[in-house]
């Protein structure tokens, strides 16, 4: 007898939802940049973090890895060499969120911890890039993190709400209120 996997348990769901979060990671920043708030609200991080809350670690890492490159190829944002930096920090963000969720950490704790992990990786990457560009490394790295402070706040507030809503909708057969 052929066993058809139930919707929700399949690899198809993981692949398709990962693709959905990746597509959101490309489209959402376009709207933020149109209003001129893209740089401070870190819009690409929102779908990646939400994906980390809902997907398995392997797929969450793929979302973080693919999103900046696809966005750079389709919209020109972020310009090179920023996709390299962004894919490193988004892999950390998505991977940490997914690992913490898989370890059954509550969403309200997993989200700030994932953001903290991303900030640490981001600080290190920016410091290395600043050394390459001949800029003061520590100051440049802190500046990059502080510039995204409103975005960090938004991630900590909005993503757990979104993730909880999406999880609840999963339990009720995919209907989103």
């Amino acid at each position: 007898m052929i066993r058809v996997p139930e919707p929700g348990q399949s690899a198809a769901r993981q692949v398709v939802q990962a693709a959905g979060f990746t597509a959101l990671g490309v489209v959402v920043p376009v709207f933020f940049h149109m209003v001129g708030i893209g740089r401070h609200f870190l819009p690409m991080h929102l779908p990646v973090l939400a994906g980390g809350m809902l997907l398995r670690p392997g797929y969450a890492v793929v979302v973080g890895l693919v999103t900046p490159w696809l966005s750079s190829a389709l919209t020109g944002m972020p310009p090179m060499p920023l996709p390299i930096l962004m894919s490193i920090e988004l892999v950390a963000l998505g991977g940490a969120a997914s690992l913490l969720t898989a370890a059954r950490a509550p969403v309200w704790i997993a989200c700030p911890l994932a953001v903290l992990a991303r900030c640490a990786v981001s600080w290190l990457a920016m410091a290395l890039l600043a050394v390459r560009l001949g800029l003061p490394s520590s100051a440049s790295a802190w500046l990059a993190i502080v510039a995204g402070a409103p975005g960090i706040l938004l991630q900590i507030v909005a993503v757990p709400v979104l993730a909880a809503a999406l999880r609840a909708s999963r339990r009720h057969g995919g209907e989103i209120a």
Partner: protein
Amino acid sequence: MVHAMDTRSKLVCAAMFCVTVLSAPLSRLWPMALLAVFAAVVSAASSISLRALVVRLGPIAGLILLAGLGLLFQGPPVRFAAMSGKALLCGWCGALVGATTPFSDILAALRHMRVPSRIVGVTGIAYQLVFIALEEALRMATAYKCRSGQVRGMRRVRQVLRLALALCHRIIERTERMERALLARAFDGALRGLPLPPMRRRDMAASGLACAALVALLWASYA
């Protein structure tokens, strides 16, 4: 000529070009000038009209200049020029690959180059979903505009945030429908395609020559 080249060969050359551009020293501008000549020659060989190239590169150039403005105030202008030049050359390379290669061919080449199927699968479906999401987002933005008129300041920010949240829900709903459709077609998590034919000698020689020239240029720029 470039259109007919094997996609794998184009991807290898493009990756090598970007690595060379990004690794070239910031203090010397002649390697960048040579790389720009290289890109111009390939553009001419690909028979893409100058206008089409400018249309593709124009918005990218604007974004690069905006992103690099900070560097202009933090150090010598040559650093700003070098970084903007590097970003522009990489954007040029991406625009050339995009203009001469269908996306399905790029995915097939990536699959053939043993890129993990999970990455290729997610990229392939995401590419299709991006256009659906963009269309949906534009529809929603028009509806918001019709309901609330032209708003500014914090109300505009709030509107964008609400739009992003609603878009998230809609795309997840759509992926659930897509998942059911894929399950009905016995999808097991990997996108499959026909195997690619082996690379022609001509393509192998062209990509080998281009990579060797780029490595030599990089070596000379540090010598």
